């Protein structure tokens, strides 16, 4: 009896290694609580702009894509620890991030915008946020942007781990507005124009790219080649129109503001 237990345990142990082996696939980390870029739909499927784009890149590069769902906090630590090859999860290029990781060329224009309830038209700039409860996703560029000015302007930052929880919180009236990526705002308004409205111009310019562990220049090159290919042949634009109703992938402003 003892012998059987030992054999079973050893097998289970060995199998666990096989299960987490990398194989030949390109492992891509995503925070799947971020519509329309990466999220889980009503049917429980993983969908979104980044999902479609990653798959297109995989085809172009001739590799399998393996998505790894991980919370936003810790996503960069995981990259540094080589738990996956890259992050394709609406990662904005910022000066602060550049020392810690390498970026491909940007594939999507982006900036922070403010989302409000359509009934409330008083908020157009950061300065109008005084006395409000402002929702952001924890440790995103929206969070950082809000952190820079909240004391001065006088508002409260409510930072959520999940973007979806943040959106629901606004619908529930627990927060007054949200600062988020343009893509998130566009999608929220598209899906629920009774609850959301974009009330400001882009407050920052922070195009989105793929993040790769520092020093992995080969992967950056391979990805850039593939990105250029799907951009040229129109695949990228198609994906943008599908998820964002318009093409934000061409002529991207690369100046960081």
């Amino acid at each position, binding site marked *: 009896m003892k012998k059987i237990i030992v054999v079973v345990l050893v097998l289970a142990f060995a199998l666990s290694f096989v299960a987490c082996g990398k194989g030949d696939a390109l492992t891509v980390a995503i925070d799947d609580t971020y519509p329309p870029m990466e999220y889980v739909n009503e049917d429980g499927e993983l969908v979104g702009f980044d999902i479609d784009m990653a798959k297109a890149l995989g085809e172009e590069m001739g590799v399998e894509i393996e998505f790894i769902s991980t919370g936003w906090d810790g996503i960069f630590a995981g990259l540094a620890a080589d738990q996956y090859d890259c992050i394709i999860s609406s990662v904005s290029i910022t000066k602060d991030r550049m020392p810690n990781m390498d970026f491909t060329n940007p594939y999507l224009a982006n900036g922070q915008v403010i989302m409000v309830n359509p009934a409330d038209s008083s908020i157009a700039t950061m300065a109008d946020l005084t006395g409000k409860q402002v929702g952001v996703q924890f440790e995103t560029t929206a969070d950082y942007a809000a952190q820079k000015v909240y004391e001065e302007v006088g508002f409260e930052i409510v930072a959520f781990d999940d973007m979806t929880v943040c959106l629901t919180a606004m619908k*529930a009236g627990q927060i007054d507005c949200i600062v988020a990526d343009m893509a998130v705002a566009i999608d929220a308004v598209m899906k629920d124009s009774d609850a959301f409205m974009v009330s400001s111009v882009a407050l920052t310019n922070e195009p989105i790219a793929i993040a790769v562990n520092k020093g992995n220049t080969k992967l950056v090159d391979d990805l850039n080649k593939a990105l250029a290919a799907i951009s040229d042949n129109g695949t990228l634009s198609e994906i943008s129109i599908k998820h964002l109703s318009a093409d934000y992938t061409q002529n991207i402003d690369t100046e960081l503001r």
Partner: protein
Amino acid sequence: MSLNINQVLLFAKGTLTTLELTFVSMLIGTFFGLIIALGRISKSKILEKTTWVYVWVFRGTPLLLQIMIVYLAIPLMTKEIFGDAVKMSRFAAASIALVLNTAAYLAEIFRAGILSIDKGQTEAAKALGMTRRQTMVKVIIPQTYRRVIPPYANEFIMILKDTSLVSAIGLAELYRASEKLSSSTADWRYLFIAAAIYLLLTSVATQVFAYFEKKFSVYI
């Protein structure tokens, strides 16, 4: 590694929130837990059934889910039904969920304590002319303190750690503090600092409860 003053403050604030949530939920939870426990052993069928359902629901669903429901689902529901959403601060939402959850667990702990007291005690009290209420307050419940302390301490320590769940609704407690620092710098060592603080807090709690257990055992 060394921490600058801002980081120390961040951890300090987070720890304070963790402690506030723990004490609020344990104190209020104890009060309601006792009431529910008495309801569970009451002769009234209605009381017994209602409290049974309460315990069943709040022990049978995850705390994280309860926190989300209080913070998100309740306002959304009231908005739909009444047109106006019930608004509450995150601390209030978290506290409510924690209290509801704690009360259920403590109710069962108290009930077990009360039932473990020898039947002869109740008989002697009755034979001396005491009412059921007098018996409970003067004879039974004081004898449960000693027995109830180990599982109570357990619950306290669990809640102290479970407060980390409130980060899901954006409350800045201890775990959040370490999340914040470690994710912005990709330095995992902050997580260990948080772990050390939790361990320190739970160890202090353990010692305090051990002291009280000894104190209440003086007549044994």
